[in-house]
């Protein structure tokens, strides 16, 4: 384990106010690729790494969630403060690096002052110096260092400027600490009370008045800089800047009293419809690739169980899921751009009021939005919600957000329902599904909120205080990097699972009746093959299993083959499409040998009655099922961990899956009642 190595080298802990650039610096020093987002509260868990060899420092670096002060209020803040005082495996840090936004000294200096007075060895890193430079100002590292009695260094996290100085400082500090005797660290709760909070801020105001200075001697700039300085030094007015002017101008529109909410809805709508629009051409390309690969195999090998295993089991299985990688890529890309722009905090503010009506919080917005990518990080992101009940409730409803694993299912069924050349309609339909899933989660949340006192014990007051960061142009390569990594993880996580399940399912549909006996007289080879396939499946293990679930599937207009696929979707939703591909290719009565999955769905019939299986009603019914059902074991596990008990995850599984079945029943039979087959 990590302990052995960690004990031998010094531990350097990064702490700092939210959104001050900790993770950016961590990535810079460790060469890692953790997510950096222009939203206060993007990191919610600590992680460690060695510093890159090129910097020549033997030390373990720890990144932590943002904290405003040393007295934590939410779980993510507690993670950070605990990593300073009582980390379970790593112990207390030898050196603390605290990042401070140099444009916000008058707020951000609170934390370093608390750290120094508690007895930590502190290096202050001033970030965002490039933004400060746009105002022709800089911070005097010397003077700040003298007044705070610790080392100070300025860096630009985006261009790496100043990192060399930081490395020198880390080295000299580590040297000093080695020889010095260990200082006593006082828990901050002992020193802090409300009046000395005020004293600390007085101290900060004096320091801030002293440390800003103009950069250039250029005359025109000097004038503007001096004006800014005057504002600064005019103690009575405001000890700090006015907020970024461009940000205020943008907010005049984006947070407009009337337009603000419409813009919000538009932004969200465009985000989800564009997934389909942009991804469609890419999807067609991947689809063709795999269809061709499949026919290549069928043409070049003798028909036999091995050929079927490769073509039906492996190629169609993997292909049917890889087709959807472009969509997932684009989902991550668009969300990434949105996150790094700074808009998320505005979204949280705009939606705080409506969400608080149903027992949630504006801070639930970001976890819920990331729930559209994956429920697992989303549940962990809920740690930023200080109120316990609101946090548990947010975790509770996150599985109702349609995660990216459901995209393949939606995309397949949309493609089935809508002619291929009508991509814009598909985009709207997908947007509609997301809209519906959002609306239904609101309704469900509203209903559950009525019973919430029984589920989550109510305690503490609700609060919403959130910094609105300045807008930034998204850092494109960071976003692309992150998109690449999440998509890679998606494939690595889903890939083996899909392959494994494809093999199991293939086995279940192929055995025990390997050599079925059929009447061959007067039939072409192809017809014989199809007959054999049908006969084989009829007496397969899968069909035995299917007969057990058939009674549950008939009321919702489906048959056991979909049922088997739905069950396999409990391992991971992505598996649904590949198992559909498998069971339906096997039973397909299509004459063309290498029929696509869509074709096999069109011709599929319900065994007993011979009716068409995938009608408009059942397809919509299936979409509805996936909107509600909780079919992801990892989500259940994370829910258990984050809520600290089995109660919430078990309720989630039963309520959401029951609801899915019920809603599908209503949809299919409702549609049929109104004449839609």
């Amino acid at each position, binding site marked *: 384990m990590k302990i052995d190595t960690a004990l031998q080298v010094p531990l350097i802990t990064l702490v700092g106010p939210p959104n001050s650039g900790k993770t950016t610096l961590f990535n810079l020093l460790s060469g890692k690729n953790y997510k950096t987002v222009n939203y206060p509260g993007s990191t919610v868990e600590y992680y460690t790494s060695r510093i890159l060899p090129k910097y020549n420092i033997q030390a373990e670096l720890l990144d932590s969630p943002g904290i*405003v*002060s040393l*007295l934590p*209020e939410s779980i993510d803040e507690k993670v950070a403060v605990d990593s300073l005082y009582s980390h379970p495996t790593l112990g207390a840090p030898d050196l603390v690096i605290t990042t401070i936004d140099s*444009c*916000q000294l*008058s*707020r951000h200096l*609170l934390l370093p002052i608390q750290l120094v007075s508690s007895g930590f060895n502190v290096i202050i890193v001033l970030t965002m110096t490039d933004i400060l430079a746009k105002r022709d100002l800089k911070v005097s590292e010397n003077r700040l260092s003298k007044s705070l009695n610790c080392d100070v260094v300025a860096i630009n996290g985006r261009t790496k400027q100043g990192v060399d100085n930081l490395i020198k400082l880390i080295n000299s500090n580590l040297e000093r600490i080695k020889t010095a005797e260990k200082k006593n660290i006082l828990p901050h709760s002992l020193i802090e009370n*409300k009046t000395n*909070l*005020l004293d600390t*801020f007085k101290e900060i105001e004096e320091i801030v008045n002293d440390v800003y200075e103009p950069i250039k001697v250029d005359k025109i700039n000097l004038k503007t800089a001096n004006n800014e300085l005057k504002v600064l030094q005019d103690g*009575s*007015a*405001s*000890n*700090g*800047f*006015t*907020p970024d002017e461009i*940000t*205020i101008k943008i*907010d*005049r529109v984006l*947070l*407009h*009293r*009337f337009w*603000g*909410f419409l813009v919000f809805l538009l932004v969200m709508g465009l985000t989800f419809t564009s997934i389909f629009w942009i991804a469609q051409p890419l999807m067609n390309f991947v689809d063709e690739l795999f269809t061709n690969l499949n026919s290549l195999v069928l043409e070049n090998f003798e028909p036999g169980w091995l050929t079927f295993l490769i073509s039906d089991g492996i190629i169609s299985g993997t292909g049917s899921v890889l087709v959807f990688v472009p969509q997932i890529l684009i989902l991550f890309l668009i969300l990434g751009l949105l996150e790094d722009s700074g808009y998320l*905090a505005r979204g*949280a*503010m*705009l939606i*705080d*009021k*409506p969400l608080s009506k149903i027992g949630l919080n*504006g801070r639930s917005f970001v976890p819920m939005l990331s729930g559209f990518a994956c429920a697992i990080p989303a549940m962990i992101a809920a740690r930023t919600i200080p109120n316990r009940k609101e946090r548990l409730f947010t975790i509770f409803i996150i599985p109702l957000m349609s995660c990216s694993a459901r995209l393949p299912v939606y995309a397949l069924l949309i493609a089935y329902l809508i002619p291929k050349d009508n991509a814009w309609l598909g985009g709207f339909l997908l947007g509609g599904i997301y809209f519906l899933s959002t609306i239904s989660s609101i309704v469900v949340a509203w209903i559950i909120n009525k019973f919430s006192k029984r589920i989550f014990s109510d305690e*503490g*007051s609700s*609060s*919403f*205080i*959130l*910094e*609105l960061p300045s807008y930034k142009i998204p850092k494109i390569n960071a976003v692309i990097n992150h998109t690449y990594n999440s998509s890679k993880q998606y494939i690595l996580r889903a890939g083996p699972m899909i392959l494994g399940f494809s093999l199991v399912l293939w086995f279940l549909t192929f055995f025990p009746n390997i050599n079925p006996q059929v009447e061959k007289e007067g039939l072409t080879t192809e017809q014989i093959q199809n007959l054999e396939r049908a006969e084989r499946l009829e007496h397969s293990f899968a069909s035995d299993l299917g007969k057990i679930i058939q009674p549950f599937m008939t009321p919702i207009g489906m048959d056991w083959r979909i049922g088997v696929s739905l069950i396999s979707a409990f391992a991971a939703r992505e598996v649904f499409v590949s198992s559909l591909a498998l069971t339906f290719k096997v039973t397909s009565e299509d004459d063309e040998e290498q029929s696509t999955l869509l074709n096999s769905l069109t011709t599929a019939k319900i065994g007993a009655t011979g009716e068409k299986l995938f009608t408009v009603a059942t397809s919509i019914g299936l979409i509805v099922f996936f909107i509600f059902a909780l079919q992801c074991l990892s989500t259940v596990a994370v829910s258990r961990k984050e809520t600290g008990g089995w109660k919430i995850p078990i309720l989630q599984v039963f309520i959401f899956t029951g609801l899915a079945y019920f809603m599908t029943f209503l949809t299919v039979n409702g549609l049929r009642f109104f004449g839609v087959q």
Partner: protein
Amino acid sequence: MRTAAELNYREKGIISEIDYSHPSSKRIMEHGFTPGQTIELICKSTFNDPIAISIRGTLIAIRKSEAGCIKLK
């Protein structure tokens, strides 16, 4: 006495004191709302709540019920 919750659109005010009895008062102070600071209401959300206040050069979104404990001169 007026509070930050009663500020009009684009109106400035100077903080006189923070109501310590409010459960969020400590967090509000940690964000930099201390007596003597000038604040300005920059934006209101569509539903009039929360409001965005500029303090020490930063925009902070805060619910009206919490802004109510920021007393103005």
